[in-house]
């Protein structure tokens, strides 16, 4: 069987039939034991050798292949009594509930059956999901009596049986010689006769009802119909009177048209209602009628002529059919009443019989009297039982597998019999495809026994065998099955058989699912719950999520990450410990054989060494100190050496969650000491990494093809531009930005020796000495390509009302002329992640290689710049003078006063509501506005004391870290805290805390924090602040969960789509999804921040270039 590869053409999901289970079985399993005393598997036991082999030495008795090649063979257990399969208990319940226990048909009328069959056919043809239709059917098929079989008939049959029994009783009495009042007996006899006739009548009327029902759906309202009929008649008369014979004057016509129009509308809506309920014949007439009316109507419009005759003919016909329908309706109602009367009569006769029987008195020997009494009592009981049967008991499910009808628990055999009764025609209606399954297969009579390969036994070191959980469970099943069979054969009491049966059901249930609700889980001897079939598949650790969707891989490593500003963005620092563990396979050639020999000489413990050597015959040899020599001797081209990871190797680097393609990028290895992965700070944004303990994964490519592909497609420098917004996602962060600003801002000059030091550090070519101090802008210009021209507004731009452009006071207007930074300071807008304009330009104009060099050098230069000056921050940066504090306090007090005034105005009802708002809402809005303004104003006061020599301010304004809001909250005022987007209202009844009055609306009472973080919050403020903070925390937690799920679904929906060479987006079948990607065929990563091109920017650049050329 080795080497046979089969192609799966299709998979059918269905049920295994008992025949199929037997057919695929190689042996019947009978013995609950596994091995005999000698340790050999017992024939017909659970470890029967025909079920397959695991030991590599042995050959399989069934297929003859060696252990490991044999995938195992199923066996089977014949169950002594059927049991319900847990997995299908719900389905069985649903099916039983919607079918007749008598005839097995679905509890739908013929009409409904036709309708639903068509509907299901339609859905299947369109490959749509039919679950909703099935749900509808299950809800509808809950009728009290079956439309297909006549329960009255069974009632009648029952009564015949009763009659016979009664006659037997009479004979017995006569034979016994007991004295009985013959009058009463006669009476009873007579009652029985009446009962039979009454039942006969009951049957005929119920049959009649059924017949009428099959013609029409009678459930509609009669009075409504009568009304419609009435209106139709009136309108018709009215219409005729307007027209008055053949007088077709325009006015009369118009009037008529109006009336007919109304009539039509009425009919339209009513007929719609009725359509479903009428038989097809009537329906056709009505449809024809409607059609005719509309054609006649068109003619009215067209030629101002009416074919009154035809029109009225159809109107009359319609009336007639409606009347006919009404008649049937009436007949139906009459029949129903009749049925009720008949049923009542039946009940009365039965009552009579019971009463008469009670009146019977016997004279004679005690023994015989008791015997006869028993018989009569039995008769009465039977009568009562037959009456009870008429009321259909709802079937309930008692989880997980018991089906209960009223008080009676159905046995699996009864369930199976019932399911067998369902005709194949009805299978689709209960959701079963007759080609694949039969409902009775959901009740097991044969149990497949999985091969031993599925449940291997383990031999412990002590020589003791330990069996798999499934084997344990199968042993239990076999043991009980055996006992049940023996007891049944021995004719044991019903009670004992039932108990054993129940036990068998329990074992089979837990064999399938040991976590089924309502069943105590089966436990191992140690008390651990057994892991049975469902547990193997279910959940995170189950076969699907853990083994099929998720895989563990070799040649990978994971450790904590830490920053290294000295390596390139393309590189990753790999700890030596990892480098000597994960390897790269290298084909030995005559050109590299010397190098490889050196690796082998180093062995597996010294860094550029080798761990394994693979011979041309694919044997893998580990490199040990002892084997080194012999390997070296034999080494020749054609061998493969698995050498240690070395500088320059390409590896895949990844941080979870892998939300976008930049979460996995190819890096060049740089082997470094210590135990963490080192990465350049610029690649933190794409990975969303920081160094508070984050770990990352590394994978080593094993083939040249993968390496080549990764190098050209996945390298970090290829991902500087994000396809998300067409700008750089890799770029300077934090100190890179502050450093760039400190280096290039107006008035920043450096001594030439310092400049050379910085330039050297940044790995830039040495410039010509200027023999004077350098401005920062001159130093930065060394980075820029010589022909770069651009203009943009820096992050520090204050967004003045009118831009002074070149005259900007903040040095925020950046102009680069022919690679010279003429004016403007470098900040986040220059080379920051997400918004770096210069970086963006460099990638797009000069390519990724150049961009990588630019970014490496720029960040290093910025760091040198910041180190020349020194940079630190503390709360001292947020210090403001006394007078500022006073001003802020006054401002906030005033604001609070204004709030009080607003509240007073509100209480005095002087407040005017804003459009669309209630008075209360208006007040809230106004208060929020006043307090918001107050916070902003206080911030402005604080800001006015902050200069550009303040490090915290530099960071906030250049976009390095933090915002002005953060600073003003520290220095001036924290401001309003909010929960649910408004001021804080929750807590106690009509107040937030017991410190306030009920209904208090003031600023302090609803969470306005007047203090600054620096001055400290008072306890109440602190509490409100915690409330707002907690809400933020909860929100983020919920948001990540929600967006994660959304992303998962989106990815699942789109994962197989790709853009073809011709620009079309297609799925894996080649079906076109979009005739042009994004409708414009633009790769967003190569676009200009999402747009095809920024014309304004290009014009501006041309202008600069022209100016510079002059």
């Amino acid at each position, binding site marked *: 069987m080795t080497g046979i590869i089969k192609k799966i053409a299709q998979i059918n999901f269905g049920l295994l039939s008992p025949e199929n289970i037997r057919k695929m079985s190689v042996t019947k399993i009978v013995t609950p034991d596994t091995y005999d005393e000698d340790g050999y598997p017992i024939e017909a036991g659970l470890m029967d050798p025909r079920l397959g082999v695991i030991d590599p030495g042995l050959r399989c008795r069934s297929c003859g292949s060696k252990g490991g090649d044999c995938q195992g063979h199923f066996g089977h257990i014949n169950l002594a009594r059927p049991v319900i399969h847990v997995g299908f208990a719900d389905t069985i319940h649903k099916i039983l509930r919607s079918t007749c226990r008598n005839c097995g048909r679905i509890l739908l009328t013929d009409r409904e059956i036709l309708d639903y069959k068509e509907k299901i056919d339609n859905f299947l043809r369109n490959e749509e999901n039919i679950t909703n239709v099935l749900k509808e059917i299950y809800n509808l098929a809950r009728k009290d009596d079956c439309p297909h079989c006549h329960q009255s008939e069974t009632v009648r049959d029952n009564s015949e049986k009763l009659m016979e029994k009664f006659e037997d009783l009479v004979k017995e009495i006569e034979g016994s010689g007991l004295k009985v009042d013959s009058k009463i007996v006669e009476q009873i006899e007579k009652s029985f006769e009446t009962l039979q006739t009454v039942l006969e009548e009951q049957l005929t009327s119920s049959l009649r009802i059924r017949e009428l029902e099959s013609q029409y759906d009678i459930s509609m309202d009669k009075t409504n119909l009568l009304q419609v009929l009435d209106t139709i008649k009136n309108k018709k008369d009215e219409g005729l009177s307007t027209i008055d014979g053949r007088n077709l004057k325009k006015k009369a016509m118009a009037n008529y048209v109006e009336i007919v129009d109304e009539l039509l509308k009425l009919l339209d809506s009513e007929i719609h209602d009725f359509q479903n309920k009428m038989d097809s014949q009537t329906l056709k007439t009505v449809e024809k009628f409607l059609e005719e009316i509309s054609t006649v109507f068109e003619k009215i419009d067209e030629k101002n002529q009416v074919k009154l005759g035809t029109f009225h003919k159809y109107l009359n016909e319609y009336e007639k059919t409606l009347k006919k329908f009404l008649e049937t309706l009436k007949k139906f109602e009459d029949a129903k009443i009749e049925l009720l009367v008949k049923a009542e009569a039946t009940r009365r006769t039965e009552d009579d019989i019971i009463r008469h029987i009670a009146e019977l008195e016997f004279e004679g020997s005690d023994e015989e009297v008791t015997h006869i009494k028993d018989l009569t009592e039995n008769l009465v009981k039977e009568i009562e039982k037959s009456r009870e049967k008429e009321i259909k008991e709802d079937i309930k499910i008692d989880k997980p597998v018991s089906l209960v009808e009223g008080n009676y628990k159905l046995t699996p055999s009864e369930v199976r019999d019932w399911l067998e009764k369902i005709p194949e025609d009805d299978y689709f209606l209960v959701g079963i495809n007759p080609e694949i399954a039969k409902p009775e297969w959901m009740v097991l009579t044969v149990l497949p026994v999985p091969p031993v390969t599925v449940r291997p036994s383990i031999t412990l070191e002590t020589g003791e065998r330990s069996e798999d959980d499934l084997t344990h469970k199968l042993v239990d099943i076999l043991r009980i099955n055996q006992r049940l069979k023996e007891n049944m054969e021995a004719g044991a009491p019903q009670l004992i058989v039932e108990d054993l049966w129940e036990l068998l059901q329990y074992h089979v249930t837990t064999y399938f699912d040991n976590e089924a609700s309502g069943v105590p889980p089966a436990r191992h001897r140690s008390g651990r719950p057994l892991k049975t079939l469902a547990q193997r598949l279910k959940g995170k650790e189950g076969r699907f999520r853990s083994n099929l969707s998720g895989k563990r891989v070799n040649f990978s490593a994971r450790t904590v990450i830490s920053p290294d500003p000295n390596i390139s963005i393309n590189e990753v620092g790999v700890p030596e410990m990892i480098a000597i563990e994960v390897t790269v396979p290298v084909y030995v050639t005559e050109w590299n054989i010397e190098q490889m020999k050196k690796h082998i000489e180093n062995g597996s413990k010294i860094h550029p060494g080798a761990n394994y050597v693979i011979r041309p015959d694919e044997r893998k040899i580990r490199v040990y100190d002892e084997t080194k020599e012999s390997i070296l001797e034999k080494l020749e081209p054609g061998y493969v050496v698995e050498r240690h990871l070395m500088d320059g190797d390409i590896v895949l680097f990844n941080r979870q969650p892998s939300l976008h393609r930049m979460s996995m990028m190819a890096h060049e290895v740089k082997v470094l000491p210590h135990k963490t992965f080192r990465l350049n700070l610029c690649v933190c944004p794409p990975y969303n990494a920081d160094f508070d303990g984050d770990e990352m994964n590394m994978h080593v490519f094993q083939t040249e093809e993968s390496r080549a592909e990764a190098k050209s497609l996945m390298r970090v420098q290829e991902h500087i531009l994000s396809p998300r917004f067409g700008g750089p996602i890799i770029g300077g962060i934090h100190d890179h930005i502050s450093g760039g600003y400190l280096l290039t801002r107006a008035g920043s000059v450096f001594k030439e020796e310092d400049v050379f030091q910085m330039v050297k550090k940044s790995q830039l070519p040495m410039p010509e000495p200027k023999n004077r101090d350098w401005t920062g802008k001159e130093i930065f210009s060394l980075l820029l390509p010589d022909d770069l021209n651009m203009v943009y507004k820096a992050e520090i731009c204050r967004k003045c009302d009118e831009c002074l452009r070149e005259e900007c006071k903040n040095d925020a207007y950046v102009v680069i002329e022919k690679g010279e930074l003429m004016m403007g300071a470098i900040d986040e807008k220059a080379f920051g992640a997400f918004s770096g304009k210069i970086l963006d330009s460099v990638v797009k104009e000069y390519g990724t290689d150049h961009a990588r060099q630019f970014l490496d050098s720029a960040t290093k230069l910025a760091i040198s710049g910041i180190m020349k000056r020194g940079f630190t921050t503390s709360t001292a940066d947020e210090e403001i003078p006394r007078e500022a504090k006073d001003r802020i306090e006054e401002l906030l007090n005033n604001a609070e006063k204004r709030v009080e005034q607003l509240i007073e105005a509100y209480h005095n009802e002087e407040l005017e509501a804003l459009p669309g708002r209630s008075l209360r809402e208006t007040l809230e809005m106004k208060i929020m506005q006043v307090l918001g303004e107050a916070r902003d104003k206080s911030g402005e006061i604080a800001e006015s004391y902050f200069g550009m020599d303040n490090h915290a301010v530099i960071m906030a304004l250049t976009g390095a870290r933090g915002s002005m809001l953060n600073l003003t909250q520290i220095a001036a005022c924290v401001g309003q805290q909010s929960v649910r987007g408004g001021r804080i209202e929750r807590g106690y009844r009509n107040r937030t805390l017991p410190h306030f009055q009920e209904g208090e609306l003031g600023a302090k009472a609803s969470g306005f924090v007047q203090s600054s973080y620096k001055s400290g919050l008072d306890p109440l403020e602190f509490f409100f602040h915690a409330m707002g903070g907690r809400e933020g925390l909860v929100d983020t937690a919920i948001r990540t969960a929600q967006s994660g799920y959304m992303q998962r679904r989106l990815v699942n929906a789109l994962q197989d789509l790709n853009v073809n060479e*011709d620009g079309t987006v*297609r799925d894996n079948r*080649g*079906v*076109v999804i979009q*005739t042009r990607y994004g*409708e414009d065929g633009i790769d967003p990563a190569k676009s200009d921040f999402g747009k095809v091109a920024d014309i304004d920017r290009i014009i501006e650049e041309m202008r600069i270039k022209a100016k510079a050329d002059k």
Partner: protein
Amino acid sequence: MVKKDILKHELVPDHVVLKKNQITKVLKDMGVHPEQLPKIKLDDPVVKAIGAKKGDIIKITRKSQTAGRFISYRLVLG
């Protein structure tokens, strides 16, 4: 019931049934079988309005945020 011409509604893009020779050209240009085109149901209101039949290919010209005007094709399903 008043019938409106849905084709005139601003949200309904322009639908045109392709002629035989146009179909072969379009399919050849895109390199697809008709079955690989996106589908449109026969009971789609627009399909009914323009009177397309099963197997027809409809050219849809719609406004596009990115491209201004965008053309796509759909196969009418039975």
